[in-house]
């Protein structure tokens, strides 16, 4: 099979572009530390997020690319009236703030791409004795 010069140039360009793409580090994984529960409990892990209404659960989260470098990341609740997700002043610490009872998704974006979606449940406070 003979390739025309135009086809050959296209093939070379395609290979070059794919090589360049291979040089860009991609999202690899996110480490989720031990959550700091509220006085009424709560958790943040790969299974999801639970926060009692009116309470705050904090956690240390870091995303890495496949070069094992830390990636800039943001967290956002799909319904911010149910759950507020805030950065804490300490690096890579995040606060999950239960505003009202309900369920919402929390998107984790690394390098401005959604890399993880976690379900969050803001539940009622246990009845106070």
């Amino acid at each position: 099979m003979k390739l025309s010069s135009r086809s050959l140039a296209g093939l070379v360009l395609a290979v070059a572009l794919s090589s360049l793409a291979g040089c860009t580090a991609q999202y690899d994984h996110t480490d989720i530390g031990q959550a700091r529960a509220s006085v009424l409990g709560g958790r943040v892990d790969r299974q999801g997020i639970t926060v009692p209404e009116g309470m705050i659960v904090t956690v240390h989260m870091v995303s890495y690319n496949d070069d094992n470098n830390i990636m800039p990341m943001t967290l956002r609740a799909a319904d911010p009236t149910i759950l507020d997700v805030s950065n804490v002043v300490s690096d890579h610490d995040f606060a999950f703030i239960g505003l009202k009872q309900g369920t919402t998704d929390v998107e984790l974006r690394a390098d401005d791409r959604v890399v993880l979606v976690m379900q969050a449940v803001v539940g009622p406070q246990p009845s106070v004795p």
Partner: protein
Amino acid sequence: MNFRLLAMTTLGVLAAAGCSSTDGSKAGELGNGGFYFACTDAVSCTRYSDDAEKFPKAVSVGSSFQVRFTPKSSSSLSASDSHINLTTGTDRGITISPVGEFISRGPNGLVALKLGYGTITARDASGQLIDFVNIRVAKPDALVVYDAAVAHGDTPSRIESLTMSLSGSRQLRAFAQEKNSVLAGSLSVEWTAEPKSGVVDIIDSDGEVTITPRAAGTAKLTASGGTFSQEISVEVKP
């Protein structure tokens, strides 16, 4: 004292010291600063104000109060911010805010609205969470009516009935209790008299009621606040 006892005592003191910050404020849950409590009613405020050991665990539903925050000097805030004292609201870019529906903003600071545990946050100018503190919003199981002349900070005697002469007047206040403990917060107490006129006149001002006898007879005085009411009988003698 043997060595084991000495060691346990030392650990105990260190542990107790770790429960609060050293500047007299209650350490926030994240350890980035200290919170102060303040309100204006004598009995239910003075005992809880401006001391970490006194920061209340519970406030009465319906009461108002203020919380101030001082960031720790070693926190990531700039040094110029390290000694600021904040009243409720925003100052130097730091905002004190309640979380959810348990505590809200009111004209006199914060208002405890819903039974349960409330959270109060301190955020920096960019909205990042610096620290937070929890406080329980409790329903009083008693309103204690007391003589307003009692010294601030004392636990005054409960007044259940009053006997007055036609000359002179009395000033009364009320505070909320839960399981015989004073609940923190300035409680908005509404005073009413029955019959409304004839035996006594009442003037309700800033939580304090002034009772002025008008004629001999009996009346019923009711103090209402924190979803609870307390009645006292008033007898005016000729």
